[in-house]
């Protein structure tokens, strides 16, 4: 992970320390170089005096130092530089290194806290993401259920409306048929009654007009013969 990629390690600290040491060395070199002209001047004065009193002796010394003396450090330069280095080392060991170490520790702590916070934030974000995904899934499920329920409800309402409409239509048809049948029967009944009344009226008029007294008496005689007994009543 990216957070782990920036975790501090010892090699990084070592390289950083080397850089610090190099800087300090450069600083010491700079101090020594600043001090060298003074020493060189002092040494030049000594040299002038020495040149005056010991011109002969120089000849013998150059002869002695002509081989190995070329690679050995010049004591005149080496000792001040050594002293300056030691002083610088002591100063740095006393004041610089603790401050530097403290800075490193603070930085390490800061980075560790930042990484910890980053991990916590990551965990929190993962938890929030999981919760969000769960809520999203729940919301999707709820939405799907709502849609399903709405569809079922709509189907039920549709079926109910259809059934009611069919029932009402059937009822209307039945009522219409019943009304038609009743009107038909009423018309037939009225027609029958009219025909019956007319027929009876015509028959009565024909009987009253066409039958003579003798016809009536014959009818009476026939009816008496065909009539039932008094005891039958």
């Amino acid at each position, binding site marked *: 992970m990216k957070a782990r990629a920036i975790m501090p390690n010892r090699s990084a600290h070592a390289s950083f320390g080397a850089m610090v040491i190099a800087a300090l060395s450069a600083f010491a070199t700079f101090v020594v170089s600043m001090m060298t002209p003074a020493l060189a001047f002092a040494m030049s004065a000594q040299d002038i005096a020495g040149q005056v009193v010991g011109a002969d002796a120089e000849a013998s010394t150059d002869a002695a130092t002509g081989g190995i003396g070329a690679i050995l450090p010049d004591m005149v330069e080496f000792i001040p530089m050594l002293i300056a280095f030691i002083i610088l080392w002591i100063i740095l060991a006393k004041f610089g290194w603790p401050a530097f170490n403290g800075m490193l520790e603070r930085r390490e702590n800061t980075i560790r806290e930042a990484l910890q916070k980053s991990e916590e934030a990551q965990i929190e974000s993962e938890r929030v993401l999981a919760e969000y995904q769960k809520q999203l899934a729940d919301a999707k499920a709820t939405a799907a259920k709502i849609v399903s329920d709405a569809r079922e409800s709509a189907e039920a309402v549709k079926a109910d409306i259809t059934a009611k409409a069919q029932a009402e239509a059937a009822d209307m048809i039945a009522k219409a048929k019943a009304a038609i049948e009743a009107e038909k029967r009423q018309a*037939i*009944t009225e027609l*029958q*009654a009219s*025909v*019956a*009344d007319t*027929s*009876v009226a015509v*028959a*009565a008029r024909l*009987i*009253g007009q066409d*039958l003579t*007294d003798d016809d*009536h*008496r014959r*009818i*009476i*005689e026939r*009816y*008496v*013969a*065909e*009539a*039932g*007994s*008094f*005891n039958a*009543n």
Partner: protein
Amino acid sequence: MPTNRLIEKEKVGTYAAAMFDAANTAGGEQAVLEVRNQIEQVIKLMRSNMDLSTALVNVDYTPEERHQLVSSVFADSNPAFREVMAVMAERGDAQLLPRVFESYGDELAEKLDTIVVDVTTVVPLDGQLRETIKKKAEADLGKKVVLNEKIDKSILGGIIMSAGSKRIDASVLSQLAHARSVLKDRTDGGESQ
């Protein structure tokens, strides 16, 4: 006013017996039949004339006034009927006349072994037809029959015979009424009958 049915029945029987005995004593069978016809006519009159029927039982009139009313209205009637009817009105029993008529018929059948058969026709009966009807009625009823003939053109033809509560309706009017009923009630026009 007593409403006990036994008392009323006894009253009705007493009035009918008094009428019958008085008429039979005065004029025999002829008078008895005459009284019977007059009772029947008065019943019809009372049914058609509410003033008369109301006046005969009106308690606002004194019994003597009701008696006098009957004597005046039915002055031409047979005395047997008139006097008994006057007594009935005097006692407030004029409304019992239809039941007296029925009981009178029972008296007739019991005491004279005779039943009056009311015969309604469109034309007057001749001798042969009258004899035919009489024989049939006597055969059915088992008693001597006296025909009470009536002419009613409204029956159109045929004959209606009634003896007390027994009745034979062989009139053309009833035949046509039956035919009308069949034609109206049957959906097949009466052809299945």
